[in-house]
């Protein structure tokens, strides 16, 4: 188990600076997620942790020791790739055995460990098969077993679920989380899927263009996103962002006015679809589209300030397309951002027009 630290880490590929300056501490035994869109530097960070990329500057520490130049094979890091990266020419048993070959583990002990790891991820009956004979989910488990068999001090998961179908993804999510609880190994998950990050990780590091936007628990990121980017990235369906101008306690946007507390100037109001209610008060609109999602219904409401998404509980639509409605919300659920700096204004809220 290890505590991981990035100190002013820089990574450049030629002239391109992928990570300008990264500072981050991951506690021993923690499960963190690196979340961000493609090309934000999350996989680069992961490969630096694995020892595949050499940092261009700064220090990378495992348990207080600088490991910048320690080779990948000496770091005792387990990694699961998006493609699983199983060795196609080896049986499942030899795949899981592979890391132990270089640890000079005695044959009997190694085989016992392989058995234990295979049992842990429930692939014990597949040991004699080739990777090509396994389903995606099974390959995923084998890759996990291979990463875990050497008892790594750090487990790295690079988009581990993105090649699985939806229902399998759900069960693997649960399994990986319970494995972490069982083994307590420090785990870093790289993903572009906010649901994966929020459901599995203790802490989420939200990245954008090589910089860390926000670090926090899933709740922090959802309830108090520090920037417009995080607010837009977390939450499904995505948040409604409405830009306007605030003057004398009133935000004016095209076709509506909100009363604002604690902010002025060019603002962007953030309203999550699940916090909006269709009712008697609020701003007016016309229902343009209805998207039933099973337990919930998503209404796309055409208003003076553009299309607004409203998520209502319940399985049957209470309104029909084309109906004129009013949309209200509780002021404490609203978020207010400074448009120019794209930052959250803490404590500021808006109130729906009467």
């Amino acid at each position: 188990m290890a505590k991981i630290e990035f100190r002013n880490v820089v990574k450049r590929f030629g002239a391109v600076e992928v990570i300008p300056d990264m500072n981050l501490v991951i506690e021993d035994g923690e499960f963190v997620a690196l979340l961000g869109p493609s090309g934000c530097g999350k996989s680069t960070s992961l490969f630096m942790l694995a020892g595949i990329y050499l940092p261009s500057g700064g220090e990378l520490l495992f348990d207080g020791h600088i490991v910048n130049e320690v080779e990948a094979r000496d770091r005792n890091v387990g990694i699961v790739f998006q493609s699983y990266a199983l060795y196609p020419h080896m049986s499942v048993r030899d795949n899981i055995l592979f890391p132990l070959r270089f640890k000079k583990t005695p044959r009997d002990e190694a085989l016992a460990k392989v058995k234990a790891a295979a049992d842990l991820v429930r692939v014990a009956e597949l040991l004699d098969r080739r990777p090509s004979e396994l389903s995606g989910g099974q390959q995923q488990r084998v890759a996990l077993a291979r990463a875990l068999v050497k008892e790594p001090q750090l487990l790295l998961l690079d988009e581990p679920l993105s090649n699985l179908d939806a229902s399998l993804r759900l069960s693997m999510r649960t399994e990986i989380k319970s494995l972490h609880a069982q083994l307590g190994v420090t785990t870093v998950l790289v993903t572009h899927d906010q649901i994966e990050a929020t459901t599995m990780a203790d802490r989420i590091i939200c990245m954008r263009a090589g910089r860390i936007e926000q670090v926090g628990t899933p709740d922090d990121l959802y309830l108090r996103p520090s920037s417009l980017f995080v607010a837009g990235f977390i939450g499904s369906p995505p948040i409604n962002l409405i830009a306007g101008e605030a003057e004398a306690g009133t935000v004016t946007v095209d076709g509506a006015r909100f009363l604002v507390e604690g902010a002025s100037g060019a603002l962007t109001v953030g309203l999550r679809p699940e916090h909006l209610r269709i009712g008697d008060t609020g701003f007016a609109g016309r229902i343009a589209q209805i998207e039933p999602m099973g337990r919930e219904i998503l209404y796309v409401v055409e208003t003076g300030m553009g299309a607004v998404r409203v998520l209502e509980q319940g399985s049957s639509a209470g309104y029909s397309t084309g109906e004129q409605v009013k949309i209200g919300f509780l002021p404490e659920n609203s978020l207010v951002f400074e448009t120019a700096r794209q930052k959250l204004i803490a404590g500021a809220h808006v109130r729906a027009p009467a």
Partner: protein
Amino acid sequence: MVTQHIPMASTAASEPTVDWDALAARARAVRRTKAVVLYAFLIAVSVPIILPYFWLVTIAFSAKTGVAETAVLWRSMAVFVPAVVAFWLTAALAQSRRQLWIGIAAVAAIAVFAFVLSVGPDLHLGNFIFLWEPDFASVVRSRVGEIKGAVQFPNVWHAFGNSILIAGAQTAIVVTVASLAAYYLSRFQFPGRSSMLRSLLVLHAFPVLTLIVPMFLMLYWIGLLDTLYGVILVLVAFELPFAIFIMKGFFDAVPWDIEMSALTDGASRRQAFVSVVLPQVRNGILAIAVFTFIRGWEEYIFVFTFLIRNSNWTMSLYMYWVRDDVMGVDYGVVSAVGVFYLVPSLILYMAAQRYLMQMSIGGVKG
């Protein structure tokens, strides 16, 4: 469900009736015709290739010293040509895969039977005398009462061994060097990489014969003229560029992930290369090995130029001298040597055919 009852009779009357059976029959006829034409074309283009081999084998097993008769050849043709036509008709007329196989088996059985009946009594192994009689040239010549002037032939197995040595050593070196070089070209960035890749193809485009005089001089000066090593080095140099290019295509197709995975699993770069990357390009290695071996096996120009002593003869030189010495007397022996020379490459091709087919796929990726 609401079923709509459309008055069928009136619709049918207003539209022209479609005769589905006639359409199907026409499609069948078209398909049949296409197959017949296709097989005819394939047979027409393959006959000029197969016929010389057929004759070579027939002559090797039937010709007699000093007798320039072609009756056996004509009799074998009398079996061969109807057999080809019968195969063609079978393929064209067969209604199902089962019928096709039964038909082909029947034709083949009849053809073999007819061949044994018409040519069988003339078949013999006498032309393979060179396999057990090193001085066969004198023996053959003495049969027609002419002894003087026979070339002193080395034992054929010696020439066979030389050919195996040249082709084998060339293959071993090319496979080793090409794998390492191609891996490096595929995985590492270094100055001059792209120009090197381009020059690989340019090198292959050069007609190698233009270099034969300078090569001769170089081998003479470094003392490798008239040695097998010299020829091996020259062949390796000419075969490497293309082999590297092919192998690079195979290495490019190996995902980075499994290599990175091996590194984090505790392997060194070399261990990862040997235990994880190399097994993925096994087909490529087999393909270039087979091609290089056959290239070395059939090599004629370089060995003819650079090897002089008859103890250094390869099979191609042996064949050349046999032709030179006894052709006028006994073309059966020449054919027999040809068959003997042909067999190893034939066996190798058949054994490796599966991997050779994949080379084009792997190669295109490069």
